[in-house]
């Protein structure tokens, strides 16, 4: 018997399919296939190795989210520090409320020539969008069932195409705001053509309990560059599932950074496929959790061709009864010589009840490679705290200094300076808030 949460999603599909973008096109057929695959597999659960630490089925059974309503009319964006984190940066802004694009709240005028930015519904008839949606990454199969769910129900998203050689002059900021409780399925499509460049910020905020299932498909052509930065600070009743699938052609360059502060349960999945030589991917992140928050970072980096570089560092601070998970895999295929693959995860436990599960893996089938992985879990050094206090620094300030120093090693990897400083002040505040 199909469990309730899975059944609810299938019913939502049956009820709404005619109104979803791309009805009566290739996409409706694609949705049909996806929903069948999803119905067969159901929501992922802990008996699957990849979902061992995050039982999405159980989480969604308990929460029972109805589809998020369209939020008509005025919206007051939250006045939180996270929502305003990038406010000082000159940028284009695209706002989604309950997973739906809001032109009235977005600012995208004067985009450079060669930059196309549209909501999903406007690009479903374009071939490039279809290619991205239909693409399957060999390494991404473990993500496929949640991607299938997304494909079946996706109703909006930001779709960005940057033509050959064009550089997006300002960061593009995608702000996702949950105004009402409910489930939403967002699909972002990003195509950066040869030698083109873009920087994208993503912010996810909201005071309401929602389930966001976001899939972002990225294609970086030869020599293309994408800097991606994501800040997730949603309500503690919210469940956040984000899957990013990035394919890099020769000499492409991808940096990704995720800062996770919010949500009761969150999982970030990052799948990177190297399809051309000499490409580089930096997949990094940091998280600071408290209460009973649970966050799972899942990365698969597939070196399918020679001479590519991938570096991954995730650092997290866990307080109270929070739980962190890192699962990472670097695959080096038989002909992928001269691969440079590094992966590291480090967690700092601030409480006896906090827990960290780390599973870094290497799968290497080539012999001339440089690969390393590692994992550490520790607590604040009492000796270090004593040393700082012996210089007159009060204990709370000493702890904050050490925690910030720990997270900064990861945050320092954010290439955009103003954004980096904005994230640093958020993590500084995180600790101050806890003790306020």
């Amino acid at each position, binding site marked *: 018997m199909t469990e309730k949460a899975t059944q609810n999603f299938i019913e939502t599909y049956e009820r709404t399919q005619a109104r979803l973008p791309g009805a009566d096109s290739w996409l409706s057929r694609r949705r049909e296939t996806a929903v069948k695959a999803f119905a067969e597999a159901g929501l992922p659960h802990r008996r699957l190795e990849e979902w061992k630490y995050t039982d999405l089925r159980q989480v969604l059974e308990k929460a029972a989210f109805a589809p998020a309503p369209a939020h008509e009319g005025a919206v007051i964006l939250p006045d939180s520090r996270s929502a305003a984190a990038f406010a000082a940066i000159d940028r284009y802004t695209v706002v989604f409320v309950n997973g739906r694009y809001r032109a009235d709240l977005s600012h995208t005028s004067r985009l450079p020539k060669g930059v196309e930015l549209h909501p999903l519904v406007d690009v479903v008839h374009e071939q490039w969008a279809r290619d991205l949606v239909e693409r399957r990454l060999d390494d991404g199969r473990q993500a496929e069932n949640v991607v299938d769910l997304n494909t079946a129900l996706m109703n909006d998203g930001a779709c960005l195409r940057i033509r050959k050689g064009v550089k997006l002059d300002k960061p593009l900021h995608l702000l996702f705001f949950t105004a009402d409780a409910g489930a939403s399925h967002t699909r972002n499509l990003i195509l950066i053509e040869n030698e083109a460049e873009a920087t994208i910020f993503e912010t996810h905020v909201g005071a309401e309990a929602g389930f966001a299932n976001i899939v972002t498909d990225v294609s970086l052509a030869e020599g293309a560059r994408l800097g991606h930065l994501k800040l997730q600070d949603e309500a503690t009743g919210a469940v956040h599932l984000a899957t990013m699938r990035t394919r890099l052609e020769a000499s492409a360059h991808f940096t990704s950074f995720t800062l996770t502060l919010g949500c009761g349960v969150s999982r970030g999945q990052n799948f990177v496929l190297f399809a051309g030589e000499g490409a580089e991917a930096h997949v990094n992140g940091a998280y600071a959790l408290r209460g009973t928050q649970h966050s799972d970072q899942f990365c698969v980096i597939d070196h399918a061709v020679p001479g590519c570089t991938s570096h991954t560092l995730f650092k997290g601070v866990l307080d109270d009864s929070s739980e962190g998970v890192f699962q990472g895999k670097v695959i080096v295929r038989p002909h992928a010589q001269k691969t440079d693959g590094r992966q590291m995860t480090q967690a700092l436990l601030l409480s006896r009840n906090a827990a960290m599960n780390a599973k870094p893996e290497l799968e290497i089938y080539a012999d001339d490679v440089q690969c390393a992985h590692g994992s550490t879990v520790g607590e604040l050094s009492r000796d270090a705290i*004593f040393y700082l206090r012996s*210089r007159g620094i009060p204990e709370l300030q000493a702890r904050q200094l050490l925690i910030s120093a720990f997270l*900064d090693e990861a945050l320092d990897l954010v290439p955009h300076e103003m954004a980096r400083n904005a994230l640093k002040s958020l993590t500084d505040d995180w600790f101050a808030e806890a003790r306020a």
Partner: protein
Amino acid sequence: MNVKETSMLEIRNLHVTVDGKEILRGIDLDVRAGEVHAIMGPNGSGKSTLSYVLAGREGYEVTEGSVRFKGRDLLEMGVDERAAAGIFLAFQYPLEIPGVTTMTFLKTALNAQRKARGEGELDAVRFLKLVREKAKPLNVSDDMLKRALNVGYSGGEKKRAEVLQMSLLEPALAVLDETDSGLDIDALKTVADGVNALRSSDRAMVVITHYQRLLDYIVPDVVHVLSQGRIVKTGGKELAHELEKSGYAAYGADAA
């Protein structure tokens, strides 16, 4: 002369246990402003324990006796409170603090102490000027200040950084724990010059050392011999030279 009234640091019958083992077994010590006291003794005699008890490290249980600093009950004060009141411990093994630059650390410490004393915090410009002024005679470069505190510092650099902290924080009482360990003669001279520059009539120092060598450069007013948790002899600076010749065997300890 009434010693009690003028002592900056007054230790009476101090007994301290660590992990249930008694390490200090009745220490009496009076240190007045302007004085430099040397505490010498073999390994395991309790020298470092005394320095940690003064700084307030956890795990050191005072079972008997008292410590007063500037008339206040030191043992009732927290670690950072003691620092703000004017106690500074130069560590034998300064800790490495990855991710916190020496500059940030110095600024945080100085401003925390100023705040605790009700003084205003220094702004960035005034702070920078002050640090450069204090760093120069100690050969502490801007590059060192930009690096993470003590991370990758040589033994000499760590000790110079300790003296820089002391110079910046201007404590009333400086306790130097084996400041000579791991230093070659040139580094030792630089460190000793830095310490000597801080000698003043309103500041006291307690120099803890195993060897007499350091005391050739930081000349003490009083020398105490610590053995098995007690001060067994007190004398002038010449006592250090005697010890160098005869060792600690005469004081009921191994000549370690």
